[in-house]
């Protein structure tokens, strides 16, 4: 196998697949990248069996073929090569010669025979989405995923294609974020998956290199074809991402979203964010809560910790309901405020034991459960 490639393109291609490597010592090949050369492109593939990524880069292929190389090392070498032109030459015994300008590397590779192929999915359950939209939607809910491995069902983002809309949900059992968007979903193609947290992170990395993406799934796995038409450093066609999905039943999230609105207030997102963040500076592991108090046209945020001190913030709002107060974990208030981009949010509260709800006009809901001193 022999090809010539632009150093920055090479590096960019490896960067796409770099994060997905196996950690199992039993299968060393999983820490390698599969490099395949044919026609005018080189394909890079990595997988850890749960997650796999494939990206294509344009190159001048002289002799087609394939080999696998340790991806981390390779990426750090390629990044630092002195010259933009890189020649890649693999001998049949999997020794690779990499030369650029005055530097030459010889790297020991492994044959591709042991490299597990990425599963492909048919088109039965596939949908096209706009990349920018999906990015916004994922960012609006991803923070609410649980990291507690004992509740693995919650370690991901729930995608539901149903009732003419796409709904994304994430929850850790104490707060829940949901966002939905109108979309054509034929009744016979309706379905849902739980996409693992790690895949969500990778996906967010990949997005916004093009305009659209295609998602296909069945009950065990999901695949994404992410168009790269906006990329200018060598990526061809689309990036292919394969992932196992979290198997199990997602909790019935609809029942925890309050149906009735009690007290709704309109807030300036950044102002509230700043107030709560400042107040939370006095919080400690012992006392990790901020109290929100509503009185006539005034919202007050207070926090205190017994061994440090206390904070008091106030902001003017339009409010004429009864006086009430409720306490929350500050992170649960800050996360949705940070993730949103709109200037205005609506906040709904009822009393100190009922959940607080953030909403926007774009079908976004974030339910957060209060903290109480018992």
């Amino acid at each position, binding site marked *: 196998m022999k090809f010539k490639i632009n150093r920055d393109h090479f590096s960019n291609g490896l960067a796409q697949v770099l994060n997905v490597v196996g950690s199992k010592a039993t299968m060393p090949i999983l820490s390698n990248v599969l490099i395949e050369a044919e026609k005018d492109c080189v394909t890079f593939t990595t997988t850890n069996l749960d997650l796999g990524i494939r990206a294509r880069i344009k190159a001048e292929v002289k002799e087609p073929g394939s080999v696998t190389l340790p991806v981390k090392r390779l990426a750090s070498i390629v990044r630092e090569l002195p010259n933009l032109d890189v020649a890649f030459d693999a001998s049949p015994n999997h020794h690779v010669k990499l030369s650029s300008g005055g530097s030459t590397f010889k790297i020991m590779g492994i044959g591709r025979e042991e490299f597990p192929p990425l599963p492909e999915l048919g088109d039965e359950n596939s949908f096209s989405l706009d990349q920018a939209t999906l990015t916004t939607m994922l960012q609006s809910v991803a923070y609410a995923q649980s990291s*507690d491995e004992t509740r693995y069902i919650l370690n991901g983002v729930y995608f539901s294609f149903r009732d003419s809309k796409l709904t994304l949900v994430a929850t850790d059992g104490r707060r829940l974020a949901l966002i939905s968007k109108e979309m054509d979903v034929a009744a016979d193609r309706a379905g849902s998956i739980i996409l693992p947290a790690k895949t969500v992170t990778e996906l967010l990395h990949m997005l916004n290199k093009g305009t659209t993406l295609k998602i296909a799934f069945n009950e065990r796995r999901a695949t994404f074809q992410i168009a790269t038409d906006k990329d200018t450093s060598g990526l061809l066609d689309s990036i292919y991402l394969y992932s196992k999905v979290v198997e199990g039943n997602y909790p019935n999230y609809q029942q925890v979203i309050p149906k009735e609105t009690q007290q709704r207030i309109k807030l300036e997102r950044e102002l509230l964010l700043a107030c709560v963040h400042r107040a939370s500076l006095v919080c400690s*592991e012992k006392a990790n809560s901020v109290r929100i108090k509503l009185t006539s046209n005034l919202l007050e945020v207070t926090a205190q910790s017994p061994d440090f001190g206390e904070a008091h913030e106030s902001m003017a709002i339009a409010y004429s309901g009864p006086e009430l107060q409720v306490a929350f974990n500050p992170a649960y208030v800050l996360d949705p405020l940070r993730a949103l981009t709109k200037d205005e949010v609506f906040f709904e509260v009822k009393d100190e034991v009922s959940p607080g709800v953030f909403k926007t006009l774009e079908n976004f809901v974030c339910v957060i459960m209060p903290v109480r001193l018992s």
Partner: protein
Amino acid sequence: MPNVRILPDRVANQIAAGEVIERPAAVVKELVENALDAGATRIEVEFAHGGRSFIRVEDNGPGMARDDALLALERHATSKIAEADDLNRLATFGFRGEALPSIASVSRFTLQTRAAGAEAGTEILVNGGRFVHVRDCGRPAGTRIEVAQLFNSVPARRKFLKTDATEAAHIVTGVRLYALAFPAVAFTLIEDGRVVLRSPECADLAGRVGEIFGRQLREQLVPIAAEEPGLRLHGLIGLPGAGRATRHEMITFVNARPVDSRTLNYALIESYHEALPKGRYPLAFVFLEIDPAAVDVNVHPAKREVRFRSEASVRSFVICSVLARLREMAAPAPAAMPPATSNIQPSTLNVPPQSRVWPAALLATPKASAAGVPVVIAPPATTSPPVAVGNSSLAIVHTGRGPQATAGWRYLGLAHGEFALFETPAGLVLLDRRAAHERVWFERLQAQFRDHAVPNQRLLFAVPLELDPVAAALLLDRLDFINRHGFEIVEFGRSFFRIEGVPAWMEPGDAGPFLRDLVAAWREGPALGANPDAAREQLARLAAARAVRLPAVAGETVMQALVTELFACRAPLTSPSGRLTHIELGHGELARRFQR
């Protein structure tokens, strides 16, 4: 001098009753065993007031003719064996012929029975061991026995009974054991008119376990089957990692008889020594089938204990079979492990609460500080003098140091992810991260409890918790206490609870296992109900072990903050379970070791 005389049967029966019938649950056990021995396929048990006022056991077995029924009430009358040698071939539960006369001698006893072919049934009423009447009655084929006013003729025994709830729990537990042993028999259990357990004929043991213990538990079990000449083991065992803090869900049967066998219990625990942390007990519902001649069930009046002729071979057979099955499961992938149990940490349950030196100091100090020193904001320096006075040797040195104790400590690094190494003016200190964190959390939680300021995080999705009747009764009893300490738990049907809120530091997924451990600790330990301080300390100790989540990497600032917090504690030397938090190597020690 009193003359030697032979006791009348009625007295002898009452004495035997003292051994065989120690509580209402024993009556139920004997009667259910009789029904099973008779080959019934449907058994209904009803009782009222913990069994003391009324017990009824009805079956659809073959029934008895009148003469047999009368004979059955005689002492040592049985259809199950004929000669002593039969004891070596026992395939039935009963054999002594003592149960019916014993029960009849201490209650108002009604027996109704009709043999399948007979025209009329027989009804026999015995009150306190005296025959009242024998007459014809109509009833379907089978036998029905009612035991009312239990222990009416032995008031002393009556006084020793526990509360109705406890006695009821024993009956329920007992019936469940037999229901497990005979999945093909339909069981109904009615308490005070309410159906507690109704299980139709199940296809297999797994189905029955699901019916009785719930689906959650069933999913943590895998079947096991092994055989060697003369021995057969089958049933269900827990997945690696799925453990409990008590043995209540480690249930063994020998030839279908529920038994409490040391040999089997230890064999099971030993098999799991790699699959479960120390001090946790495996889940098991296992049946051992063995030649009746190789086992003696006539050891214990209630036949709860058995003795094997060859303990060693039974033991090694069980260990080999279970280990082989566990290895088989471990082989494919760790993914086979239930994620719900991966977080189990070595529990501190097996440490007796009264051990070590420090509790005295701990218990003493809250009182000392409550006497006048403001607790919350007071720097440790102000609280340490009373500690130092009342405390024993080791702790004085450290508590006396106060927060300045760690001045001049330089963090060097973390060994094996567990031990932090510090250079100190006096030499070197090795710190056990987990133990240190546990100590810090323990005192933090104690402070929260004392100030009645336990933050409670409400949950979006209530966590369901299903307990066995005894544990449920305990939890129900202390629900207020628990709910005052950061939880929000509501009763949701019999033996079923919903966790609607957890202490703010706890992961929702941890709440179920934590409460199980807590209830188990209550069950094993001394009654602390009357002493809220001790109960709180127990809660804090268990909670501290759970609260600690160690990140894989910890920077210098984190470790410095940890030692500062640790030395602000009242008893920084040990963790709440009594392990050392750190070891100090002084200059002298170092010099001596290096022979300088």
